[in-house]
């Protein structure tokens, strides 16, 4: 009896320790990704892709592999943007669980959009996310506005587009961009960024007012 009592707390303790370790590594991963380490993103992508495809295919009865891959791409992108924008700074569950939840919501939205109503409109009971996680989903921009934005950015010279993405999408610093793109000085980077951004802004404004 005494041995049994001693065993139970220690199993509980082991489980808690395992969760704590998993969360610590998840938070370390978030920190690394937030610091611009894209290799971490690649590892996450590779590690969970096939499981996601299998799970989502079975859960949503999707046979088309391209649709599943699209959903996985969007899932990882949404996760990355949350981390990059510092909207997601810590996790109380495993990264995989969190990713699958984002994927689940995304697929649910897709089904709703296509008016498929045979799915239950709530989270899967097995995926239980703590309230402490503040997930702000990307708002859908209207299709037409997206086309407008795409057309404007495609008009920019390749180099301008690249440094704008590095700065404002990937959050890279000016010294990093200077080194990566081979600029002579930080000032040259700042000026190029400013000009590119202004050009893009003016082009967009022009298209909208036409």
């Amino acid at each position, binding site marked *: 009896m005494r041995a049994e009592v001693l065993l139970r707390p220690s199993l509980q303790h082991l489980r808690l320790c395992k969760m704590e370790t998993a969360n610590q590594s998840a938070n370390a991963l978030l920190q690394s990704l937030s610091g611009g380490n894209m290799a971490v993103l690649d590892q996450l992508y590779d590690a969970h892709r096939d499981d996601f495809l299998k799970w989502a295919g079975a859960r949503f009865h999707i046979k088309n592999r391209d649709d599943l891959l699209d959903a996985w791409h969007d899932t990882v992108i949404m996760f990355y943007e949350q981390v990059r924008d510092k909207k997601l700074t810590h996790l109380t569950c495993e990264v995989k669980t969190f990713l699958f939840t984002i994927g689940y919501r995304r697929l649910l939205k897709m089904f709703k959009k296509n008016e498929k109503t045979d799915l239950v409109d709530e989270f899967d009971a097995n995926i239980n996310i703590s309230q402490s996680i503040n997930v702000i989903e990307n708002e859908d921009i209207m299709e037409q506005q997206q086309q407008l934005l795409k057309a404007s950015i495609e008009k920019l010279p390749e180099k301008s587009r690249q440094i704008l*993405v590095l700065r404002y999408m990937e959050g890279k610093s000016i010294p990093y961009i200077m080194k990566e793109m081979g600029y002579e000085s930080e000032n040259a980077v700042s000026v190029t960024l400013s000009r590119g951004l202004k050009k893009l802004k003016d082009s967009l404004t022009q298209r909208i007012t036409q």
Partner: protein
Amino acid sequence: MEERDIVLIERYLAGELTLSERAEVERRAQEEPAFKKEFTEYMMALEAIRLAGREELKNRFRQRDKILDGKSAQVKRFNPGNHFWKLAAGVLIMILLGWLIYKGYQKPYEENIITEVEMDSVIDKNIDTTGSLQNTELRASNEEKKENKKILKTRNKSEELYADNFEPYRDESMEPMARGDEDELSAFEQFELYYWDKNFEKAVAAFESMSESQKQNDNLRFLYANALMGLGKTDKAINILTDIIKNNKSIYKVEANLFLALSYLRVGNESEAKKHLDIYLKDESSEQKEKARKILAGID
């Protein structure tokens, strides 16, 4: 709008402001009409950049899918538990060993290039010397030489067609903006400049020192493939052009078919060359249809 306000908005977009600075920007965007207008327009520009960034991430993930799918196909194909594949692997190793031994006894490539005239004279000489082809060994050797002669003929014709028609892709919008001391230029600018000046060796070196994200850009890879063709590195060019066509996102995806056809001509693969020329001619947006028709006529 003052310059410092623009700088403030730019820093806001880059996430570089403190919490209080952010709050200040957001307050002004609510209360000051002129600031609000500028701020809204810049936020839209940010959204456009994010869309572009998302597209780049998608391309990155598509590349990863290729790698992952390739790996899992390899694992399936080469399942160690499968006796058939063990046997196949053994046969392959034997063939490879045999080829290596054969190559060891081969003369260098250059010495093997025999012109048509030389081969003709060798065949004729043998026929003349023996009077009649009774010696079976000699007959077999002459048959082989005739076959090699046919292959060489095809190869030489294809190479001629390639030499007559290959011109690295160029249009006026590609003329480099940056000129001056080459050491001050970035790898990208150097690539643009050397490519335009047809200095392909330096262009290739500049491409290879660009960042990973730039090297994955299919538009730049198309020009890189052209530079490789200019250096005679056709096999590498074939792989890159095939990939660009498959990815279907480059602005040069149509022209890639023409250059792929030319590359196949260079290596003597007329059937693949014809296939890609046909695809090229069927596309309405092809820029060099006349040239493609001329090449096709040359093959036929």
